[in-house]
């Protein structure tokens, strides 16, 4: 074989591999969306129906009007949004304060605090289920969204601080010093100089927390009882308990839950890697 032919063959091989990877990754997602738009006789069949032949909005409509477990899916989407957004807003304030402390100041216990942040991230949240359940109940927050919000803030904070501190550290100190010399107060310096520059990092960190809280299932399963307080993941799991599964409905609901995460993912994909792999990847 000539070198040129071999090179061309290698190129074909690579592209074939790329297509295989793409299909493996995308097909299950496509299948979820396709099933959501198929009429029942195209879903419950032993034939292969690659595309919805007579696409229908029945399932989407049904999960909104008739709903799941007695409530329209609007209510679950709203509950999920309330939990995720409140978690993000409160968490962002706490995280920004703590991140500023570790990135801008040298003080005793700074190293200890950072190591503590790392270690608590290693503790499996599933292990804290029992004590947190008892605590939430003692505080009278059982079966209320506020209980979920409190738990989610705790679960997301360590990572938020860890990620945000690199963004704060990246803002040149000279800018703040210049503002100081010009007579700005500490608060003005923070609000007018540091905050605008850290804002993009704050957005990225917030998206992370949002996804975590939006996807959270284990605590929603344990801390919520009334169906009217279900979040989306909890409502989806309700389908699973049924004797015969309504695949059209579940896929419609699942698609609706996935869309916001997908959008946010594409927005922060780059930071995703650098945030998680921390110092290991230099580049």
């Amino acid at each position, binding site marked *: 074989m000539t070198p040129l032919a071999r090179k061309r063959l290698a190129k074909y091989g690579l592209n074939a591999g790329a297509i295989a990877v793409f299909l493996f990754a995308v097909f299950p997602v496509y299948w979820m969306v396709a099933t959501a738009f198929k009429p029942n006789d195209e879903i419950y069949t032993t034939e292969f129906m690659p595309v919805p032949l007579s696409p229908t909005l029945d399932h989407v409509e049904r999960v909104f009007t008739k709903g799941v477990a007695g409530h329209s899916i609007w209510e679950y989407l709203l509950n999920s949004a309330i939990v995720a957004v409140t978690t993000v807003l409160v968490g962002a304030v706490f995280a920004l304060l703590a991140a500023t402390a570790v990135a801008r100041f040298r003080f005793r216990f700074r190293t200890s605090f950072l190591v503590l942040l790392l270690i608590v991230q290693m503790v499996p949240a*599933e292990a804290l289920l029992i004590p947190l359940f008892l605590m939430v109940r003692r505080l009278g927050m059982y079966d209320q969204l506020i209980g979920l919000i409190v738990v989610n803030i705790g679960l997301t904070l360590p990572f938020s601080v860890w990620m945000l501190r690199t963004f704060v550290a990246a803002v040149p100190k000279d800018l703040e010093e210049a503002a100081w010399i010009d007579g700005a107060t500490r608060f003005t310096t923070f609000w007018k100089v540091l905050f605008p520059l850290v804002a993009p990092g704050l957005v990225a960190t917030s998206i992370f927390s949002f996804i975590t809280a939006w996807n959270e299932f284990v605590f929603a399963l*344990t801390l919520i009882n009334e169906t009217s307080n279900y979040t989306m993941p909890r409502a989806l799991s309700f389908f699973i308990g049924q004797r015969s599964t309504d695949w059209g409905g579940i896929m419609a609901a699942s698609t609706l839950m996935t869309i916001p995460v997908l959008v946010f993912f594409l927005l922060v994909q780059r930071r995703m890697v650098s945030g998680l792999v921390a110092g290991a990847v230099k580049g």
Partner: protein
Amino acid sequence: MSPKLVPYALLIPGLIVIAALLLYPLFQMVVMSFQKVGLKQIRPKNPVPAEWNDFENYTTVLQSDLFWTSLRNTVVFAVVTGALTLVVGTLVGLLLNRLGRAMSTVVVVGIMAAWAVPPTSQAIIWKWLFDADSGIINWALNLLPDWLSSLVFGRSDWSGQPWLNEPLTIYLVLVMAVLWASFPFVAVSVLAGLKSIPSELYEAARVDGSTGIGTFRKITFPLLKPVFSVLIVLQIIWDFKVFTQLFLIAGGTNMPREAFNLSLWSYIEAFSPPPDMGLGSAIAVVLTVVLLLITFVYVRQIVKAEDVR
């Protein structure tokens, strides 16, 4: 405020949250693992104070046959899924690095879609793919020529084949679901690492007559070692405590007991009637200790690499 106190003031809200929602519960979990905490102790009206029962919970855990099955399920699942994820992810990362710009973007967006799917949906999608009657996997297996299918699997008719009744096949579906959702992260991380390796190194290797596998072993792998060690530990953390996907794929609280892993077993003991939160806590302690021992390496690596000091 004295400037010395500023950082402490900034830290207080965050510290309170971490102490109240992570450290205190951790402490509570350890305490409860040495206590009898049943229905009488947790009922809302006049609860009985929890009694110390020394190591009774731990002896119950160790003597239960569920301990060995769930420990085995936890460890084998984490090792198999972790290894598969790393191998597939690395191969895809290497592939992405050699693709043209347009093709690489398309594949990255594609794998991003798999990565973005919430755990609840991951479980539901793969349950649907492996559905006994209308699942596409059974349809695809039926397409295999009969002789091949009987040779490999010992059967040729896959119609109505249930996958989610016994532990082994439940875990097969679970491995697929988790692998599918987690290889993209490895691939993108490896790609980021590869991009940071100077191309001169590869040119020098080529001039010296090194071939594909040799170059990977001598240049790529050593340079990406820090990335791999972080990825390995992250995969272990994630795969060790898998709960949502297993819970949903195996059918919720009614799942076969032989399919429990440690976190599910702890949950079932603590929250299924009759609740035994002391026993549940003891199982959770075992899970946490095992995980912390493994991740200690990761923490040290990061403390060394980052400017923690």
